[in-house]
Each structure stands twice: as structure tokens, then as C-alpha cells.
């Protein structure tokens, strides 16, 4: 029944290889885990580097990813493969997917992403532009703004992956190899392979990693972005609320978020509702982001205010079981390709530092009950929520 759990228990743990030092290499090999999925001769290789951006160079990690991406895409295309980049709060992530027979080639492509990029002016301007667009979206587009604003208040020390304007200006003229040296440590690299490959073959393919080749850049002061001032223009009003929940049981918090979303959608049928469990190495939170037409905005604000009480009042065991089952099925559905499976397993592992974290969470969902969810709601109710509100744009007829 629990295919994911069984598969993880059988494959991840058995094939997880401890990092081994080898004096003959520049750097020790990374931790390698393999999830065998023999349905098709395809492999997804996910390489993650646990790293914060160096102080003073906010956005550096994601900029490096954009600098490297065109070259990675061109290389992977030769074997009919795909490449994706992601900058999470925990790690820089590169994933390549292609034929299992091209394992060594694909691994070589990924290893090349661990060297400081050599960028000409054109490449640097293009990458800065793309990261800058992501930064602008967090100010100008309502859904991104809501989340960025809530996050900045919940986790004040966490800077967005897209960085800051000041960081971008420094990076434009910085020595990239020095900035990279301040981020890159081979012992923080891990590799997860999902597909029709053997652990030994993956270990051989990643036997050596490049070493950092420059003196790390000097730490500088970061300027934290402020999400006050002029809010983005939106045709609907937006209401956001988030509660810190560091000590909550993660599975119960996920179930609570799902139930909260269902409850708010029932109460606000004309609104767009998203209830999310935010979970990084910085901490956990439950966040609600809603968009509603102007006439429904007062009701949406009120609902955000009493959301926890309303859910607690109507909480029952059957709903909890159903929500937990729904989350487990969502996990299975979202991991049905090697690439997505690698994303799911790797995301949990990066956050928890434990290759079995996804499996444990999946199993834990099965044990969540109403008292646990009630305990989470009580914990949230004791915390001070953060609120963000964006009124709808007022359109005036032209004179």
C-alpha cells in the first residue's frame, strides 16, 4: 500500500553511502543515495549544496545558477535530457534527468556546476537581469509579494533567494571565484539518484569533486529588504496571515494547514485560498494567503482573524484522517516521475540532514490524529501572528 514508504525503506537506506575520505582526491566524495526505480532506463540526478549566500552577497547562489544554466542546458540537450535549478532556503540544487546509459556524462555535467562560473559581460548582465526580475516580482506581483512580506516578518534573518539590490551591485563587480569559495564546501554536497541505476555506478560517477580554488571573499554587511511602502497593484484584495510554529510536529502541522485551507474555502466560496506549511532549516510556520473581490474583503479579513478558532470548533477525527490520507496521496502523485521523486526526497533530506526524512514524514502522516492537530492549533493560537494586507486597486475613469 504505502509504496513510497516501502520503496524508501528498501532503497534509500540500503544504498546510502557514507562519505569516505580519499587522500588521492582534491575533495572527498559527496554523500550519495540511490532510489532504484527500474520502470524505465532513465535517471534523475539531484545535486545539492547546503549553503547560505555569503554575507554581503545576497542572491549570489541563485545568480551562479543562472550563469551556469545555459551551459548545462546545452550539454544535457545532447543526450536528450533536461536540467533544472532551484534555490531553496536550505540549498543550491541542480537536477539533471536523462537516459540511465548516460549516467557518467550527466554526472560530469553536474560536477561542472561546482566550479565558479566564468562569465563574460553579456552572460553576467543576462543573469543579473533574470535574478532582478525575480526580485521585482516579489514587490510587484501580489501573490509573490504576500509570501515574501510574510516570510520577511516571520524569519527576519532570511533573505530571499533572489537577493537584494545592494547584493546584486556588489556581485556585478565581485571576483566570482572568491564569492563561490565562500559558499562552496565539498563536504556539504550530496547527490540523490532516482531511476534505473546502481549505487556503485553512481558512487563511481561522483568519486571526485572539484575543490574550492580561491580565497573566500571577505564577509560584508547585508541590507535586509523591506516589504513596506507601496504595495503591488492588484484587481482583488489580498489578505495574508502566518503563525510561527517552530516546535509543532511537522506532520500534524501539514494536516492542520490542509484542514485550514478546506475550512476557509468553505467559508469564502468566492475567494482564492491557499494554506501552506512553511518548513525550512530556519523554522516552521503556517501561512494563509487569500485573494478576494472587494466586496468579500471584510469577510476574508475576519476569516483570517478567527481561522484557528473556527477550525478548532469544527475539528473531528474523520476530517483529520481524510486530510492526512489526502496529503499522503499528494506525495505519491507528486513523486511519480524520477525527477519529481528526487525533488521530494531531496527537499526533505536537505532540510533535515536525514536521507530518511521523507519516509519518516510519510509514515508520521499516517499516525496524525485529532488531538495532535488540536495541540498544533493551540500552539499557533499562543503565537503572535503576522498579517499582510493589500487592498484592491481603485480604477478611476480617465478625465
Amino acid at each position, binding site marked *: *500500500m504505502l*509504496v*513510497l514508504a516501502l*520503496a524508501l525503506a528498501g*532503497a534509500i537506506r540500503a544504498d546510502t553511502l557514507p562519505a569516505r575520505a580519499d587522500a588521492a582526491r582534491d575533495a572527498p566524495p559527496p554523500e550519495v543515495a540511490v*532510489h*532504484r*526505480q*527500474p*520502470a*524505465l*532506463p*532513465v535517471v534523475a540526478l539531484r545535486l545539492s549544496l547546503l549553503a547560505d549566500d555569503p554575507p554581503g552577497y545576497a542572491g549570489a547562489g541563485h545568480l551562479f545558477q543562472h550563469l551556469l544554466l545555459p551551459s548545462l542546458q546545452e550539454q544535457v*540537450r*545532447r*543526450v*536528450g*535530457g*533536461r536540467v533544472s535549478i532551484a534555490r531553496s532556503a536550505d540549498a543550491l540544487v541542480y537536477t539533471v*534527468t*536523462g*537516459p540511465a546509459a*548516460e549516467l557518467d556524462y550527466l554526472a560530469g555535467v553536474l560536477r561542472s556546476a561546482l566550479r565558479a562560473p566564468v562569465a563574460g559581460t553579456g552572460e553576467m548582465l543576462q543573469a543579473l537581469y533574470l535574478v532582478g526580475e525575480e526580485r521585482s516580482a516579489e514587490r510587484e506581483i501580489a501573490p509573490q509579494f504576500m509570501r515574501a512580506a510574510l516570510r520577511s516578518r516571520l524569519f527576519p534573518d532570511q533573505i530571499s533567494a533572489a537577493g537584494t539590490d545592494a547584493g546584486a551591485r556588489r556581485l556585478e563587480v565581485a571576483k566570482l571565484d572568491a564569492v563561490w569559495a565562500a559558499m562552496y564546501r565539498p563536504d556539504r554536497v550530496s547527490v540523490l539518484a532516482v531511476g534505473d541505476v546502481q549505487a556503485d555506478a553512481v558512487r563511481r560517477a561522483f568519486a571526485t569533486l572539484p575543490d574550492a580554488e580561491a580565497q573566500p571573499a571577505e564577509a560584508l554587511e547585508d541590507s535586509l529588504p523591506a516589504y513596506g511602502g507601496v504595495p503591488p497593484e492588484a484587481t482583488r484584495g489580498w489578505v495574508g496571515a502566518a503563525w510561527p510554529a517552530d516546535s509543532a510536529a511537522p506532520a500534524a502541522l501539514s494536516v492542520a494547514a490542509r484542514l485550514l485551507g478546506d475550512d476557509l474555502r468553505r467559508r469564502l466560496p468566492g475567494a482564492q485560498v491557499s494554506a501552506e506549511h512553511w518548513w525550512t532549516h530556519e523554522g516552521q510556520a503556517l501561512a494563509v494567503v487569500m485573494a478576494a473581490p472587494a466586496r468579500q474583503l471584510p469577510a476574508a479579513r475576519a476569516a483570517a482573524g478567527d481561522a484557528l478558532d473556527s477550525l478548532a470548533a469544527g475539528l473531528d477525527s474523520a476530517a483529520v484522517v*481524510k486530510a492526512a*490520507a*489526502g496529503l*499522503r*496521496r*499528494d506525495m*505519491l*502523485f507528486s*513523486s*511519480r*516521475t*524520477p*525527477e519529481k*521523486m528526487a525533488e521530494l526526497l531531496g527537499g526533505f533530506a536537505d532540510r533535515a540532514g536525514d536521507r530518511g526524512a521523507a519516509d519518516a514524514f510519510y509514515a508520521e502522516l499516517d499516525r496524525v490524529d485529532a488531538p495532535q492537530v488540536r495541540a498544533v492549533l493551540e500552539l499557533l493560537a499562543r503565537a503572535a501572528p503576522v498579517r499582510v494586507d493589500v487592498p484592491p486597486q481603485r480604477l478611476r475613469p480617465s478625465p
Partner: protein
Amino acid sequence: MTRASLLRLAGYLGIALAVFGSPAAAQDRIVVRTEPGTPVVSQELLLAVGPADEPELQAGIASLTARAVTSPLRATLDSLGAHLEVQVQHDALAFTLTAAPEVWEDASRALLTALFRDPADTAAVARERARIRGELEAAEANPAAVAAAQTDSVLYGAGHPWARPAAGLSATVATLTPADVDVFLRKNFTPDRVTIAVVGPVDPVEAKGFLIGRLNAAALEAPAPPETHPGDGPVRREFGSITAWVTASYRFGRDADVEALRLLALVVADRFEFGPTSRALYDARGEVVRRPGGGEVRFTLVVPPGEVDAWAERLRAAVAAVADAPLPASAFADRVRRFRGERLLALDSPEARARALARELLLSGSRTGEPVPTDRPTAERLQAAAKSLQGPVMVYLGPSVNAGT
């Protein structure tokens, strides 16, 4: 196979034999691919119903019926965490169902009941009719969709049911009533038209037994595809777009080397990538479309208005060049390497594999359970495949396309 599953299968077969006499026919229309490491089960159900079953004035009723009968199912499927997609093809309606292993039979049972037992819901018909009309009106104003429809029209010839868009026309859909849908449903949505592929961590005996028990009818003899009458010469159609479309459709027969033709589509489309000689080309695509009795390799170029004739000639020349001489060894090796990867990655989800297997079963009767052929095309096979093509049927669509005549 376990003793329990054998007994269960014997039970299913016994019931089916006793009641309907010929369960083997149903079994021949089911293929199951067991994948222990796949976390979900995908089921592709093809119902061989399409424009050939529709009166011309009711074009689109197959699509509307499919969506109207599955629309009320959404709440049930949501509660099971199952996902359903409905697609309309010229020769079949495709229902793709993906669910967790412990609920896929419940989801499949609900889908089969909706298709073959439940009457059409009046409100669902009205709702889906409005949605489909909106989608068709958008497509009828979209030059890419219009170019594709125009190519179908020329390829199959006036009056051929496949010359019409598979999803119908906004004007005919607007006139369809719940009573029309009910009549069409009763006449055409029958288990004898079904082909199914199941992919995932399932016991093949149990999965087949489950489905045989619900498709308890002999297979309908596959109807011969209507005769086609392709038009001659390039067809030019004025359209108020900024860019122009050139499509070239090369036909192939039942015994074609389809894998080599897929490679041909990639090789030819590659020649039109953006570069020093293709700076004015906006898009280039090649695809193989299989239909009962054969199919076509269709190329589409998006080019500046006023250049359609030149690009059409380059396209014809590119296909002819592959037919005239084999590619140099290194260039061929590069293309095959990439082709193989793209073919595999196109099948990296269980629903994609289920789709491929169900199509193959519908078109060729193959039940190998392998979505990708294991043999690699050779340079000689590529050349022979290019030589075997008939046509092309050319369509030019855009502003001022008649200026080049």
C-alpha cells in the same frame, strides 16, 4: 502469480464466461505493465468514439458527452486523491486516470460507471457546453490551431469526418442539447469500444481480472478508417496574424517504420533551428501522428509573411535530402543519442507510458508492455523511412500568403 490471485482470476473468468460467453475478447483489449517502484497507478482508457460517429451538424458531440459524463465524477475522484484528464482525438476519446495504488480500483470503477451506466446530467451538459464553446472560439482565432485544422481538412479531403477538428466547432456545439447527448451516449459509449492500459505497482492478473469483470462484452470489430482524398498542391489561406504558418504533412502506411520516422521528424526539425541561416524562423516542429491504417509526419514552420514559399521549399528539400543519402556517421550518432533520450524522457511519467501502451494496443493490437522499442534506428532505416513517405500536403496560412503565387 500467487495461488490467491489465480483463484481470483478463475473466479472473474468464470463469472464472465457464464454471463457473456467470450471474456477473451475483453482480455485482448487490456494491457498491464507492472512497475513495482512506481508510486501510483495510471490507467489509460481509450473509447473508440470520435467524429466518424458524429452527424456533421453535431460536430463536437463526442467531446461534449465525454466531458459531461465525467464532470460529476470530479468530487468522487477528488475525495480519492485521483486525477482524471479527458482528451479528444480523431479516432478515440482518451481518459487518463492516475491514483494511489490502494484506491485505483475504486477510481476506475467510478469512471467505468460514469461512462457506461450513468445518464448524462443536464446541468453538467450545459456547463461543459459553455466551457467547450469558449475553448473552441479561442482555438478558432488561434493561427496555430487553424493551421492544424486546415491541414487536416486538406489531408483527409472534404466531407471526411477527420477533416473536422476532433473537438468539433463552436457553432455546432452551441446547438447541442442534453437530449442529443443522451442519445449519443446510449448509442456510442459502450464497453465493446474500450482499450485499456494500466501501469504501476499492480498484480497483472488481479488488474486484468478486475477490468475484465467490467468490460464484459466482445470487442467491436475495429471499423475501417474512412477513405481519404488528400487535396493537391499547396493550399493558401489568408489569416489576420502577424506571422505565417507553413505545414507539410507526409503520409505513411500501416507497415511504416514508425520509430525511424520519429527520428526523421527530429532530424528535419533540427535543420530549422535558430542560427545564421534561420534567423527569421520563429519556430520549427516535427511530429509523428499515428492513426488507424497509418499516419503522417507533420512539420510546422512559423515564418515571416512573404517568405512562405521559400521556407516551404527548404522544408521539402530537407526531407528529400534525408531520403537521398544517409547522414554522415558522426552526425547520425549525435542525433540518435539525443533522440533516444528525448523518447525516454517523454515517457517518464506512468500516465505517459499508459498512454503510449493504450495507443499501441488500439492501433496495432500489440500487448508487449514496452512503451519504447528496444532497437535503435540505423542510418539506413532513417533513409528508407524518408523514402517511404507520400506527399507532402502543404498548407500556408497567414497574411498575404497569396502574394507568392
